């Protein structure tokens, strides 16, 4: 287990135990965990392992039978539970937006209870909607049923952040969303988290999600016994025991695609790009000068618009404003290689365009880029095993 420096601990669980009456064994048995400030700690494990119970004891939706919860140095095991919960953001899988309230009223729930004035609430609601990438003008007065699943999830996150809590609990927050939207929301959430640096306890049963989202992962066995608590790299390269190895499953190296982010790899920066307002001869010239088979058109804000092939440019009526194929595969720098690969496979072009937070063009990644990265990873893993083997031999020699 990787231990965490004392000074930096935001949440500390000490011998936390939940015993239900009439049950022979505790549901959660003496959990000890230190959660560093500003990190996402993922609790992952098979269903029934007590991960949700453990999480719900932190905001005391489930009262612990024994043990202590220390939040930012303060023992909160016995304080008023409602006041404690107002300091902790809470997102559940079913989101739980109140259907009879508008988006704004939903987000304003806790600020209202805390007696904020109207201007402050209005301002905060708009700010939060923008943070989660929704236009306040368009959405604040809508009702939850007028939103898509992904939009509801965003509002759920915004609502949990309404009073800017230092700590957030998320119980399978992306569990009920289709895979493609889920991936986008995960990336978006990581982007938001990079700015807000909340301390987050995140529960999931999906090891891939855990690897992607977690700064640290706690793999839990029955009764919430911690099998391993470590950063994802360590869990993948050095599983603590057979349970962890089984839980990660086969293809641990493939899973490492979830660890490497687009921003960490070498992109193709030499793609021929033209501004949509450039003239067509410039475009033809650029494409001819490159060894690419298509040309990327970007708008005035450098947001990718469409791919144009030589045939699209050859026509006398050719126009940079139309034709070609729309750019449908874009990823942001914090997307993982797995996301990029996924986009690549379902897109109409065999590559993905990388854009920054505002949507401006940064580069292009293709299958070769990703292969190169996989090769580097394999080399690392091989090295690790060689190192491990060497250690074993030395150990035997010593005996």
């Amino acid at each position, binding site marked *: 287990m990787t231990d965490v420096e004392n000074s930096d601990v935001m949440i500390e669980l000490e011998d936390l135990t939940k015993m239900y009456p009439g049950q022979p064994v505790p549901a959660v048995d003496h959990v000890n965990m230190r959660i560093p400030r500003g990190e996402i700690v993922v609790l992952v494990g098979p269903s029934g392992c007590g991960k949700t119970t453990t999480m719900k004891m932190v905001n005391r939706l489930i009262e612990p039978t024994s043990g202590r919860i220390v939040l930012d140095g303060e023992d909160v095991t016995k304080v008023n539970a409602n006041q404690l919960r107002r300091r902790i953001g809470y997102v559940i899988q079913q989101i739980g937006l109140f259907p009879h309230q508008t988006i704004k009223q939903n987000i304003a729930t806790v600020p209202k209870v805390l007696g904020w004035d109207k201007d402050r609430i209005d301002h905060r609601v708009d700010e939060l909607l923008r943070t989660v990438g929704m236009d306040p003008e368009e959405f604040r007065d809508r009702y939850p*049923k007028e939103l898509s699943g992904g939009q509801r999830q965003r509002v759920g996150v915004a609502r949990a952040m309404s009073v800017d809590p230092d700590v957030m609990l998320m119980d399978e927050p992306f569990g009920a969303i289709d895979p493609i939207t889920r991936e986008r929301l995960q990336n978006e959430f990581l982007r938001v988290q990079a700015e807000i640096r909340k301390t987050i306890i995140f529960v999931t049963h999906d090891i891939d999600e855990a690897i992607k989202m977690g700064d640290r992962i706690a793999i839990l066995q029955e009764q919430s016994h911690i099998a391993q608590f470590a950063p994802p790299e360590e869990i993948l390269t050095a599983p603590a025991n057979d349970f962890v190895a089984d839980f990660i499953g086969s293809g641990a190296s493939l899973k490492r695609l979830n660890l490497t982010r687009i921003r960490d790899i070498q992109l193709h920066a030499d793609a021929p790009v033209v501004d949509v307002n450039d003239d067509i001869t410039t475009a033809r010239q650029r494409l001819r000068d490159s060894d690419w088979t298509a040309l990327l058109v970007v708008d005035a804000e450098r947001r990718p618009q469409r791919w144009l092939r030589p045939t699209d440019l050859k026509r006398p009526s050719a126009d940079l404003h139309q034709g070609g194929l729309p750019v449908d595969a874009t990823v942001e720098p914090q997307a993982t290689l797995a996301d990029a690969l996924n986009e690549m496979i379902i897109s109409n072009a065999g590559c993905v365009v990388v854009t920054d937070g505002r949507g401006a063009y940064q580069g292009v990644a293709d299958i070769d880029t990703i292969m190169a990265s996989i090769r580097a990873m394999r080399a690392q893993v091989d090295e690790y095993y060689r190192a491990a083997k060497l250690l074993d031999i030395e150990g035997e020699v010593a005996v």
Partner: protein
Amino acid sequence: MAVDLVDDVALKDEAATQVSPRHRTQGLSPARKVWRYVAMPLFLTIVLVGFYLYISGQELDTIEARQLTRPIIQGRLTEHIYVSAISTFFVVLLAVPLGIFATRPSLQRFTPGIIGLGNFGQAIPSLGMLTIINLFALTVTWLPSTGTVPAVLALVAYSTLPILRNTMVGLRQVDPNLLEAGRGMGLSNFQVLRKIEMPLAVPVVLAGVRTALVINIGTAALVFLYGAGGLGTLIFQGFQLRREPILLTGAVLTATLALLVDYLAGLVEEWLTPRGI
């Protein structure tokens, strides 16, 4: 390097925003929307006008003519509405809190008893209930045994169940995830009840109130037995004196009143149902 462009655009956009109708009437054509509101009043008007013409065309004897005057009918109608309204008011005051009480997790042990009480009220025939209340009032000295007070008591006892049951059902059908979300963000139990449970239970509770109203208007036809008047007086007199026009007037007015009140309560229900559900 090669950019392999394939001419099919994969569907990968987030599901388009679905905007479902805000109100039950939205989505209907304008003509049907108007019809929905106009049909019942129109029908009742036709019935009343038709009935008026029928009675006017009859030769009324002295007894009939004496009963079927405007002040008498108006008086009976007012008594009827008064007793029904008062008893509905009290039954709401009694049954809604009882329903809330019975659904609190900490008070679940009282639930069967409360439901049993409501069932008891409705299982007894209305006439029997009137008798029981009358006997009860006779033994309790401070309670008048005739007039409006025992009448209202009987109606309240008789119509508690629909409101009680609907309040409980309405509160129980609220998605438990919403309650967890509310509690998880630090709302107190009372705030969860007031801000989440009650607004979401309103449509079902109101449906119960509507049923109770209609039951009360029907049962109020019997409160003449207490000397509390009402349209039942006309029915009973017409029956005893074998004067059909009087009996019919009482019966038609009671039925029309019940239908009209049901219609109006429906409008209120629609108006009070929170948007978004």
